[in-house]
Every structure is written in C-alpha cells, then in structure tokens.
C-alpha cells in the first residue's frame, strides 16, 4: 500500500486513491473498491481526512435538496411569468 507523508493540513488524498475515495463517499463504489478505500483511509491520515470531508460535503449537498423542498412559493416565478406560462398552455391546447 502506498502511503504518502501526512503533513496534517493537506486537503488532497493520495493521487491514486482520489477516485476510489470519491466513489466510496458517494456510495457508488463496488464492494471490493470500497473495502480497499476504507482500509487505505484507516491507515493514511490524509486519505482518512479526505474521505471524512468529502462524505460530509456530499451529505451537506444532499441537504440542499431537502432545504429546497421546504421552501415556500414566495421564491417562485413572478406573477407576470405565470400569466405568460398560462397563456402558452392555452396555446398548446388549441
């Protein structure tokens, strides 16, 4: 296993692990890849930190959708836009 020197503040994972760690974090890694990525991350400080951070980031991004779904119609199309949409719907029906 290739482990790089951990300086403690680097955001970057080991180059050859970046794709595997991303796929582990977003849940698209096949099981063998996931196992290897987790094993490596457990022994490599910066890959461990990267996996934790990118997993958190993806969780936060998923959260934006939930936040978006909870919004009210105040943040929607303007009234004149709605009028235009309804006029175009009426055209389509003809």
């Amino acid at each position: 296993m290739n482990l790089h020197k951990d300086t403690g503040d680097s955001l970057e994972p080991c180059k050859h692990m970046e794709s595997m760690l991303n796929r582990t974090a977003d849940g698209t890694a096949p099981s063998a890849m996931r196992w290897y990525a987790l094993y490596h991350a457990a022994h490599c400080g910066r890959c461990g930190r990267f996996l934790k951070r990118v997993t958190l980031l993806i969780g936060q991004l998923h959260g934006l959708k939930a936040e978006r779904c909870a919004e009210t119609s105040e943040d929607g199309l303007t009234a004149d836009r709605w009028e235009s949409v309804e006029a175009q719907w009426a055209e389509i029906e003809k």
Partner: protein
Amino acid sequence: MNCTTMEASQANTKRSEFAAIAKLHQSALLRTAKRMCGADHDLAQDIVQDTLVAAYRAFLDGRFDGRHPGAWLTRILTNSYLYTKRQNRTDSGLEGELIPNNESTQASWSGSVPSPEDSLLKGALSEPLERALMSLPESQRLCVVLADIEELPYSEVALILEVPIGTVRSRLARARMQMLTILRDLNSPLVQP
C-alpha cells in the same frame, strides 16, 4: 354534452392536474435553475418558464408516467438550460464545446463583488456551501447540481449532459476537491482539521 364541450372539459381537467404539479415544484425548479445559471436570475426565470411550457406539452402527449414529477421536471429543466445556453452561444457567434471543461473559465469567488441582485438572494447564496458551488465552472456545477443535490443516478446525468459516465465522475471529483478548498478558505467547520 356535445364533443366540443367534452374536449374543453377534459382539457380543463388536464390543465388543473398539471397546474397543481407545476405550482408544487416551481420554487424548487427556480432554485435549481439559479444554481445552474449563477447570478443570472432573469435567465433562471426564463428557463423555468420554458420548462413548464415544454413539460405541459409532454404531459398532454402522455409522456409523463405519473412517477417522480420532481425528477421529471428537473430533467426537462436541464435540457431547457442546455438548449438556451446553446442558442445564446450560437446567437453570439461563439463556437465550441457546449459546456467547456476549461478550468480557466471558473469564476473567482474571493475576488468578486456581489451585485445588488446577489444581495437580494437572501440566505442561501451567502452560505459557504452555495458560494463554493457558484465558484465552480459550469461543467462541474451542473454535475454537482444533478448528481449531488438532485441525486440523479450518474447514468442519467451522463445521458442528460451527453458525456460518458467517467466524465461525470471525474467532473464530480474535481468539483468536490475545489469546493473543499474554498470551504477551508472560508473557515467552514466541514474542513477543519
């Protein structure tokens, strides 16, 4: 009831059914469009408007199976966005890749002065995560919006953006790395040691 009256009644029922779906999802669509368009909020409104018209046409043609209206509308929204961008590029005489994968096109979040329009976007855009998202090049931002926020499968993102699935993965990896770098610079708790 004669045929014309019946047809009009059916059209009204269809219209009401679709209007309910549209009204339920319009604010979500607008937020997604804003994330795609960056600071151009008029363009976001245009795209949502186009989306609701195109979606109604598809709805009347029976091209909506009744499941997952949010995902269905998001797909139409993305296509409307890409079509509009393509038209704008054609109109302005620009040629080349639809979504340039050129890292040099990325905006610098740190050096930009927020416009009055930006300031009007209360709350969300000022949050570090939204700022990090807006700093991404368009090609990467679309992948993040569709895959990480809308949670569409990568195969579907690849289909919508007309790129191989490997390109979706590599754009996501680059986008996430850049977002982490920006969040660290903003002292986000997400990237504290």
